[in-house]
């Protein structure tokens, strides 16, 4: 078991060199091939070789590329940024949401040649290069986004030659620690953070409330231990692939201590309660998702990143839809009518995106 303070990593800093002539590194023609046979042209840096496949999804946030690409929920996915200028303020590793870049690739219109900020340690381009993450830029990302919106998310390959990616369910890779980790060991109140690919800011948010956090692997059974509450984290892929997590959560519900689910954690809680999930056509990925709290009719702008959702009709008795999406009416949160179990589909920890629902952490803490 490891004792840690805050999950902050640092890496060697590098400055960006640019050659003259508009492109700041030499590039070659690249392409994105989608499983439905369509192709989108772009450019790739010269250093990039080979072909890279992933599920192509788009995010409409206008800032927060560092946070997004390090979000484990994006693992196996090629992320399309709809905002055309990406990398403007470089990369500050302190704002990463995990120890590495998690996306399978990134697609954008313009990759910043001149990042500018006092804080950045490395340019986005250099960072992507250092972790061998493919990038395709100079792409008509609006056209691509509209395509995905109409046809739904699908598999795609970034490369220089034609590829035929298949829409099989992409290998479900669960991202989790293997050994439990403890943070703030001296704090009295102790919460379990079930790591299904948790964003670091969930951990930071819990630590900031002076809670002892025991971060455990996704299949870890904490129900025999002494704890005051459970947080079910976000994570990539299909929630039904997390059978062990769901099974332990079901036991936790019997114990009755507070349970707080976030993103995938919302789906896990719903499944543990007996509900069902389904895959959305193109998911919710952005920083402007409007949600309404059902009982108060208060509205919040939320940050989201998910491809699956809970089916409202499948919710068992004693469970209410807590939040709904104002755009498509999908379930954005559930809660138990009497017990301290609740979860949200969005990211109250933000990073990236709006901080409107940050108060949910405090709500959880008060219940402990």
């Amino acid at each position, binding site marked *: 078991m490891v004792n840690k303070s805050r999950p902050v990593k640092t890496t060697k800093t590098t400055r960006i060199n640019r050659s*003259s002539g*508009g492109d700041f590194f030499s590039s070659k023609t690249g392409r994105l091939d989608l499983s439905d046979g369509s192709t989108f042209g772009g450019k790739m840096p010269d250093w990039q070789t080979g072909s890279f496949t992933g599920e192509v999804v788009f995010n409409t946030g206008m800032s927060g590329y560092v946070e997004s690409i390090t979000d484990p929920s994006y693992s196996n996915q090629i992320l399309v940024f*709809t905002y*055309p200028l990406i990398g*403007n303020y470089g990369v500050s590793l302190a704002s990463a949401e995990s120890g590495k870049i998690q996306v399978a690739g990134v697609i954008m219109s313009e990759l910043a040649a001149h990042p500018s900020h*006092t804080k950045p340690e490395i340019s986005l381009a250099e960072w992507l290069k250092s972790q061998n993450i493919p990038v395709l830029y100079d792409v008509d990302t609006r056209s691509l*986004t509209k395509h995905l*919106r109409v046809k739904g998310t699908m598999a795609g390959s970034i490369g220089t030659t034609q590829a035929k990616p298949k829409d099989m369910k992409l290998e479900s890779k669960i991202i989790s620690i293997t050994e439990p980790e403890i943070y703030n060991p001296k704090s009295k109140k102790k919460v379990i953070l079930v790591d299904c690919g948790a964003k670091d800011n969930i951990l930071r948010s819990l630590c900031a409330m002076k809670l002892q956090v025991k971060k455990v692997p996704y299949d870890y059974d904490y129900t025999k231990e002494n704890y005051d509450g459970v947080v079910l984290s976000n994570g990539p892929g299909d929630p039904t692939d997390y059978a062990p997590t769901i099974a332990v959560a079901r036991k936790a519900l019997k114990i009755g201590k507070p349970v707080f689910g976030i993103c995938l954690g919302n789906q896990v809680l719903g499944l543990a309660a007996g509900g069902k999930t389904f895959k959305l056509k193109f998911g919710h990925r952005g920083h402007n998702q409007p949600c309404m709290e059902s009982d108060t009719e208060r509205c919040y702008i939320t940050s989201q990143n998910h491809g699956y959702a809970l089916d409202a009709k499948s919710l068992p008795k004693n469970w209410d839809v807590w939040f709904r999406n104002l755009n498509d009416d999908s379930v954005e949160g559930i809660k138990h009518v009497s017990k301290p179990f609740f979860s949200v589909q969005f990211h109250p920890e933000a*990073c990236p995106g709006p*901080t409107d629902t940050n108060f949910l952490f405090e709500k959880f803490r008060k219940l402990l």
Partner: protein
Amino acid sequence: MKKLEMPKKVVILGSGGLRIGQAGEFDYSGSQAIKSLKEEGIYTVLINPNIATVQTDDDMADKIYFQPLNAKTVTKILEQEKPDAITLSFGGQTALNLGLELHDTGVLKRLNIRVLGTPVSAIKATEDREIFKQVLSEIGTKTARSIATYNLKEALAAAKKIGYPIMMRSGFSLGGLGSGRIDNEAELKHRAGEVFKAVSQVLIEEYLMGWKEVEYEVVRDIDGNTITVCNMENFDPMGIHTGESIVVAPSQTLTNEEYHRLREMAIKTINHIGIIGECNIQYALNPVDGDYRVIEVNARLSRSSALASKATGYPLAFVASKLMLGKRLHELKNAVTGKTSAFYEPALDYLAVKMPRWDLTKLKAGDHHIGSEMKSVGEVMALGRSFPEALQKAIRMLNIGAEGLSAHPYEFTDKLDEIKNATDRRLYAIYDALKEGVSVDKIHDLSRIDNWFLNHLKDILETEEDLRMPKTLKSDMLMRAKKQGFSDKTIARLRGNTEAKVRKFRVKNGVVPVVKQIDTLAGEFDAETNYLYVTYHGETNDVKPLGAKAVAIIGSGPYCIGSSVEFDWCAVNTAKTLAKRGKKTIIVNSNPETVSTDFDRSDRLYFEELTLERLQDIADFETPEGIVVSVGGQIANNLALPLAHNGYPILGTSAEDIDKAEDRQKFSTMLGGLGIDQPEWQEVTNLKNAKAFGKKVGYPLLVRPSYVLSGGAMSVIKAEKELELYLNRATHLSPDHPVVISRFILNAKELEIDGVAQNGKLLIYAMSEHIENAGVHSGDATVVYPAQQLYLETVRRAKRIAKDVARSLNITGPFNIQFIAKDNELKVIECNVRASRSFPFVSKVSGHNFIAIAIDAMLGLPNNTAYQTLELDHVAVKSPQFSYNRLKGADPVAGVEMASTGEVACFGNSLEEAFYSSWLATEQQVKGKRVFISVPDEHKLKFIDEAKALQKDGWKIYTSEGTHDFLKKQGINSTKLYKIRDKKEPSLRSAIEGKKFDLMISVPSLIESSSDAYSIRRLAIDNHVPLLTNAETGRLLLKCLTSEELKNITPKYWKEYFPV
């Protein structure tokens, strides 16, 4: 949840005449509000004397008052109308201040009128500096610290408290002198010591210069649901007013943490203040450590909210007005998608660049520095998918003769100085400095502009250098240049080629732009939006061409001196008429302060450049059946010929005939053939010819370069020596154009005809006259319609001429002719075959929409109506709105160069009533009975009756020496004041500074000029004394002030003048 009672009748306060700091954006916000309130079944009453606005059209508010926005008049209207509510947030600072006054004086309470939206207490918290700081500190939000000090000791103590470096600002009257950064106590001792000799108050402020300037537009409903619709970052950091800055939306250099920290704070602050509706919050953000200060909150729709609305597609004013009625954000729909909720924050997949438009040369403002006060008169917004693309588009949109960064008309003596001490042309100084090899870091040190922006300028420069290379132009190089916003014209210039050839090569090689939609959510949902822009960063078009049945309308571009909201009115009414006739409409415009760029005003809105290249791109894509060039002012008009030459269909009068009126020589020949007189003129290219012409016709002369808009660089020359001076300057000013000299006729009247013809046949016309004698630019003149003081003979002949001209030019559509009349002789000064600035005025006064008639004429619809436009039961007067108090040092005297920034118009039963209301409507008033009069000999006789009336009415009259002696001979007593240069008391200077006058009539002599007169005029403006410098308007105003009938005017609404 709170519940509000829905009001039945609401009074909306407008913003009056356009002026610096308060332009057309309030026509946009007011129009949206009216539409929104009416949709709820509310009876709307609008008070706004700005007759050229869309919001004062008869299909807008239920009742419209063209009345002055002052407490006296508005109180009377409120008493008459008995509304249950009033809105203060759609009419700029004018409406807000007026509303606060009505609240404070108890009028609203007495009449039981509720203020919609943000409560008055909350408005006050944002308006009063001290309350504001207090309220924000309650929630731990930081504001910029500032301490007012009254002696050196206090100043030193304050500086110690705040910590060095500090910003020192001298209070009032010094005009920025003595302001600046102070690094230590010794320096402060020295500099503050100096300043305290001249002024009593010195502000010691926290030094925020060079911090990033960021703003958020915040919307909040009655339940406290809050969103930030847009954030914006200034290219020019703190120290330059946001209205003077280049602004990008969304922010480009803020990290996610900074973006959302400021956003969270904005929501917290706005919730705490208790705004209901829309507001804007401005921040300074320290680029090094991320520290911040809230600079201000505007508790109303603003220029920034208009910009944010256009930049995102989110209809802020419309939504705000619904929220004021108690609706909640989630109950409203996103108007762009029609499906999703209005409670959301737009996601952009492009960026917007706003650029200010200055007219400092035309306004004769000596100082071109920009800073904490607004001087710009308009703005443009460019959309693109890269910063260079949008930036270079914006430059072309400004219509200042710059084709982009690399092709601007400016020459610098000290670039680095203009970069450090910003002027209106700093951007170009930076580019030229980069060209000379000055480093980005050095420019950053001087300007504090973020390197992200500067490096992009350098990218553009590198592309320019590559374009200059002699090797063959390949299509990938061309694409790179186009993606960075280079125009075909610039590329042609850099390559020694022609624009047409570059275009041909480009199109042949498939280097063509695509059309993209503004859908507010970055493509996430299907949106039936018609809001479009053009970009080279794309492969596919978002829309299919409209094709036949579509008509494109070229808008007016940025507001500037000579082109204002009136052309926006024309564009909107054109679209309205075309739609009525079953046409699909395409509006192209670049000005975010307009109603025509509201996406529900046309079938398609292209927020684009008004250049030949871009219009060709759009027309090639859309293939419309016609293009309307005659309703957008001079920019649109100038495109007629090039568009026609390239084979595009122009609707209405042919381009050749338009040119025949524009080209002085052709026009003159035509008039000659028709036997129509015009003042003698000659086009000269050298001084010798000019002098010879002067000898022949005699002085004064009127000189101007050909093809001008609103008399740019026009001047009256009184003697040969002046002529020499002028021509040396003028040729330098515009080397491509020769100078036209004409005889200047003294003591003549000016009249105008606005008309519409079809196939050369006059359909309708309106004849108006100027109150001022000839010599005042028609845009600065006080215009009376219908004309009241013309001989019947003159009227008949003017009409005859209009008919002849319309026939000879084979006009189909709008036109305007200006005449000069003296001793029953009528001469034509000029003719424009397009809608003039007085079209909305004559339309609303006559009751006939001239634009609708013009468009029908263009569509070939027969029209045999006989319009009665000569004799009406009422009279209306249009007065110019000046912005002299905004421009330090500018000479506040109307002349042949246009200087007004806007206009207002009021109706009356008599000329006097209409004139007086109209003068008051320019936000002036005479508060007491003390007047200063100084008129030159040539005008003195005219003032005898008025001076006698003043004396009888108990006025205290002050005069200059000459006027004093003259009046004395007429038996009128006055107090003589000495000229400034006499250095004797009682002097005029001390009288003005001592606030001795309620009004000043100071008429300069046309025959001799004096610098003393300028100082007096300027003093009057700086001391907020109402000033008239024209003999005719001065005399008329005095007549009004002594008239018994005008002491208590009952304000009438527009339709009251048109009894059924």
